[in-house]
């Protein structure tokens, strides 16, 4: 790892960059996992009493607005040169976190549908701007060599904490805790936004170094925005996020499976899941760093297909028993794998000139749009009374489709290259 090299040479500034990146992204992703994904559903269905179908529509709106805000801000960042200006990015992040702090404080007081819709619109704006800003930090702070491992640490840590806290979802209590945690971050970012520091100057120029700036898959030829090399991974990641959310929401709402999920009241089960998230993320980091990314995609789809097959099998033949932990084990591995991939992939498909647009499109379409569309679909399927067995059978079919589609897609892509006269693999 390059980090060890920095430590040996006592280069503390780049090491600070690692710490800033891990802290910012872990906190951000934790907030997303808990407050946005779980909190939004809870706020709509439990606190306001909206029917699941209506909440699904609001979530779809959130997804679309987040995507629009992300792409608009990402493109703007690239055009204005903000993607490579660390101070501007700190200012933007300050704004995002400040708005999120206000939203967090306001959440327990949301009591009408109008307020809820307004809350969602503002939330989507903050999320949208936050995507290209936070994901593009990798360019400034993490050298290409270490991106897989650092992404693994971020994914593992955020899932580890989210699996253990909150044990019981109460929006009032959680809002208070989250607000208290966000205030210091807002303060630090406010200082960094207005005052120049020598170590930040040094960090701000790191993207110009060969080891930092240009992503792994942009060497020697940068990946263009309109190319198969960019939209292929977006399609695959969209599939991954879609499959995950489509199955997850129905599984955690089924009493039989709550005991072996994130929502389990048994602390040992949650600890098991938390530790497995870390192990899975680290394994994904090793694979991402040392193999072609397609292997990681293949593993993810394979794991999801097998996981849903296990769930379907258990629903059919499990006689209503609490499922064995091997079921959530594979689920957790798959989720950790693709989350690690998500953090590292988009910056590695970018150059300093394209990182705003590419991270916005990648995370916006593959992550947010897919997650919220599938969550909406899951809520809809629940609303129309589709059984869990049928629902998971569809999810499993989708996962299997991607397992088959991935090698076919790669093969066809190679064929097209050869037909055009290309020879390099």
């Amino acid at each position, binding site marked *: 790892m*390059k980090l060890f090299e920095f430590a040996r040479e006592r280069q503390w500034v780049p090491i600070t960059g690692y710490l800033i990146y891990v802290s910012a992204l872990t906190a951000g992703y934790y907030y997303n996992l808990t407050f946005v994904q779980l909190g939004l559903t809870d706020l709509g269905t439990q606190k306001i009493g909206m029917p699941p179908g209506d909440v699904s529509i609001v979530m779809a709106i959130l997804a679309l607005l987040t995507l629009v805000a992300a792409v608009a801000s990402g493109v703007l960042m690239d055009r204005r040169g903000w993607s490579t200006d660390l101070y501007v990015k700190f200012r933007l992040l300050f704004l995002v976190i400040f708005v999120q702090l206000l939203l967090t404080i306001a959440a327990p007081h949301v009591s009408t549908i109008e307020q809820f819709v307004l809350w969602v619109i503002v939330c989507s704006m903050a999320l949208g701007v936050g995507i290209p800003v936070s994901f593009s930090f990798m360019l400034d702070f993490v050298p290409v060599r270490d991106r897989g491992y650092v992404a693994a640490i971020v994914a593992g840590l955020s899932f580890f904490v989210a699996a253990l806290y909150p044990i019981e979802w109460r929006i009032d209590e959680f809002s208070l805790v989250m607000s208290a945690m966000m205030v210091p971050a807002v303060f630090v970012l406010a200082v960094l936004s207005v005052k120049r520091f020598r170590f930040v100057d040094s960090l701000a120029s790191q993207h110009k170094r060969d080891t930092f700036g240009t992503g792994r898959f942009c060497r020697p030829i940068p990946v263009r925005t309109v190319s198969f090399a960019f939209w292929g991974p977006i399609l695959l990641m969209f599939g991954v996020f879609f499959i995950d959310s489509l199955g997850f929401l129905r599984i955690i709402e089924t009493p039989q499976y709550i005991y072996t999920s994130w929502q389990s009241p048994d602390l040992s089960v949650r600890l098991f899941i938390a530790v497995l998230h870390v192990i899975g993320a680290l394994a994904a980091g090793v694979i991402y*760093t040392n193999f072609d990314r397609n292997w990681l995609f293949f593993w993810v789809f394979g*794991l999801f297909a097998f996981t849903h097959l296990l769930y379907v099998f258990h629903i059919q033949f499990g006689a209503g028993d609490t499922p064995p932990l091997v079921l959530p084990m594979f689920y957790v591995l798959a989720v950790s794998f693709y989350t690690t991939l998500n953090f590292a992939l988009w910056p590695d498909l970018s150059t300093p000139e394209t990182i705003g647009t590419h991270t916005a499109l990648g995370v916006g379409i593959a992550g947010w749009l897919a997650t919220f569309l599938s969550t909406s679909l899951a809520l809809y399927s629940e609303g129309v009374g589709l059984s869990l067995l049928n629902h998971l059978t569809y999810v499993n079919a989708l996962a299997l489709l991607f397992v088959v589609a991935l090698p076919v897609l790669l093969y066809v892509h190679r064929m097209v290259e050869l037909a055009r006269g290309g020879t390099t693999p």
Partner: protein
Amino acid sequence: MNLELIPLLIIVLLMISAGGADVETTEFVIEGDHEITEHRGALIVGDATVTVPADEAVSGPVYVIGGEFRIHGTVEGDVTQLSGSLVVEDGATIDGELQHIGGSEELSTEATIMEQTTVAFESSEPSPIAAYTPIVLTTLILAVVGALLSRKHEPLLDNVGAAAKDHPLISLTVGALLSVTFLSVFVFMAFTLILLPVSILGLLVGLLIIAYGIIALGYLAGQQLNTPRVGLATGLGVVVVMVLLQVTGVIPILGDLIAGGLLLTGLGAVVLTYFGLQEFEPVSLPE
């Protein structure tokens, strides 16, 4: 799930398959405490405590491969015990044959058992020589195969050994992921019965890959002897690795982790190098 259950589970599935039972009604209880009051088809008791309450009747056949099976009521069919614990209480009834192959059993004299057979094996406390014979034989076979392989196809072992030595973290990660995934897939396949042969074949191939990994690690260990007789060095190296695996096994938890780590690293290195047919090189990243 306790990994030691897997061979017994496969044997039981073979028995169910041979008996013509319907796999769709077969239930495998892996863990927890359960009271069974209603059941159709075959029941397999794994690492769980399963109780048939008094005045209740469940259909057989029942196979006990671990955990505990307590009968207060009635089992309408055969009960086969391969391992674990079987308790038949006062007033309990087994309408079929109780076949005891292994494990502990506690049968009340007040219980009604239609037919009872015991498959007797040799003493469960074998002498030290008998206990170590399989390990010694395995070590000898691996050492001989390793010696021959290193003399005739040294580059194969060289590639696998280099992957394990130069990239232990990658080999371990790949080995661990493959073993966890494929072990689960093969057990799952076994439940379909129709894929049971594939499952057994897969597990055998897995064992062969692990054996290959041990030979490659032995080859690496043998290189430390600095002798031109590569066959002899590999053979001795394999013996060293096998002894190391046995010795570390004595240390609780940590020993198992070390032994497991070694085996998985070997397995990963074999797969990464396509059984030694090519060198493993991670993707190139800017330094």
